[in-house]
């Protein structure tokens, strides 16, 4: 399995505060990697470094084998054409309708006629269960629907990698489940690589092929959810106990 994203000894400071202290992470193609960790640990920074929105103070961020901080803007743009991003607050364009938000990448990056764009947009919105809201503005739809529209926009160009920054934050259980169902449906159909930053432990483990823990500015592990829950690594163990209770950290009780 080849790595599509590699972070190699990435360090980043803001003033005197060092947020990332040498992060190493490898994201495998076609797999779902979930990044967990406490608040303020710098999880979203990992996504922003991978997207090329932030440059590291030192270290390398390689996407499809290219160091994205040492390539031209044109090459970076080409790489970004393979990305889809679902932002924490959806980042929908508030002066555009739901339909225009999803159609925007197609209008700006392809030469498709409007009739073809309409077909693709409606198909993606249907896949996300967003029907009958084409003419509404983001302020007129619910939080869960915003996330689904954001996901529809992220998927509209069939990207190879999709980043999810806290996809269920601020949503109730039912709405969170809607997002997870949309994720399952679309990944099964489109086979993309997913990088998810989430607090929703343990539910998020059901989606994960790999779980990585960011703790004290360093990536502590990138292992399967089962290995993660049974890990002896003190940082992982502490995280599992804090978020899931001691039951999940005990191999004996897990077997029983």
């Amino acid at each position: 399995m080849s790595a599509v994203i590699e972070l190699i000894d990435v360090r980043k400071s803001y003033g005197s505060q060092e947020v990332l202290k040498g992060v190493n992470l490898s994201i495998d193609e076609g797999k779902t990697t979930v990044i967990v960790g406490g608040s303020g640990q710098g999880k979203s920074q990992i996504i922003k470094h991978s997207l090329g929105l932030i440059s590291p103070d030192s270290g390398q961020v390689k996407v499809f084998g290219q160091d994205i901080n040492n390539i031209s803007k044109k090459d970076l743009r080409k790489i970004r054409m393979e990305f889809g991003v679902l932002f924490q607050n959806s980042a929908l364009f508030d002066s555009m309708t739901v339909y225009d938000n999803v159609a925007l990448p197609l209008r700006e990056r392809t030469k498709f006629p409007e009739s073809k764009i309409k077909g693709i947009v409606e198909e993606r919105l249907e896949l996300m269960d967003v029907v009958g809201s084409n003419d509404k503005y983001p302020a007129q739809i619910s939080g869960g629907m915003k996330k689904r529209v954001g996901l529809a926009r992220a998927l509209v160009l069939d990207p190879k990698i999709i980043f999810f920054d806290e996809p269920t934050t601020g949503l109730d259980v039912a709405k969170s489940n809607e997002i997870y169902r949309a994720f399952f449906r679309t990944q099964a159909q489109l086979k993309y690589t997913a990088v998810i930053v989430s607090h929703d432990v343990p539910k998020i483990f059901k989606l994960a092929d790999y779980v990585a823990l960011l703790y004290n500015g360093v990536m502590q592990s990138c292992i399967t959810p089962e290995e993660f829950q049974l890990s002896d690594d003190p940082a992982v163990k502490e995280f599992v106990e804090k978020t899931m209770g001691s039951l999940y950290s005990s191999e004996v009780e897990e077997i029983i």
Partner: protein
Amino acid sequence: MTNLFGKLGAAALYQFDQIGRMGVFLVLVVVNIFKPPYKLAPILKQIYIIGSKSLFVIVFTGAFTGMVLALQGYHTLSKVGVEGILGSFVSLGIIRELGPVLAALMVTGRAGSAICAEIGIMRISEQIDALECMAIDPHKFVIAPKFVAGIISMPLLTAIYDVVGIFCGYLVGVKMLGGNEGSFWSSMYSNVGMEDIQMGLLKPLCFGLLIIWISSAKGFYVHMTKGGGFGAEGVSNVTTSAVVLSSVSILVFNYLVTSFLL
């Protein structure tokens, strides 16, 4: 003492950093204006927002500027018996100086602040990041149409300001105060030359560029602004500073352009 020098140095570095960033921003936007594809619809939309929506305030301020200029001018000129040149006094004052400067200040207050706030909100709500992640250059998609619209709208708004100002000056000077109608218009025709009109149109071109440049750059870099660059307060701070900086720059550039062209 060392601490003081350190603080001064840090403040100077921050200012240089800001100036450099704004310079790079201007270059990127200008390059993107000339880069295909060329889309007319976003430019027309911005002309409507910057130009058409500023029309009322431009007509209103133009009217009162012309009226007060005629009122003051008539009383001052009549003291030395040359009220016959009221037409050239009003028209030259408006076309060369007051029209471009006051129209630009009005557009700064109305459209410049709106542009800064809009782009600032797009930045803090990650809409600019979303565009970059979609491989859509925000300089091309968001900023370039505003620049073109500003450069087109400002001279047109100033021309309207001038016409309304002169006409209202005529109403006050001739119809209200009883000045001679023939002298009013003939003094204007004989004293206003092509070079005055050129100056009166060159200035708004520069001011249009200045207003949109400062307002959009301030909003675009709201997240890098020192001291509360985040959230609603951050947007409010940069909007205020964009309006102040644009207004001051208009006055400074007005002097520079005038001294260069005279």
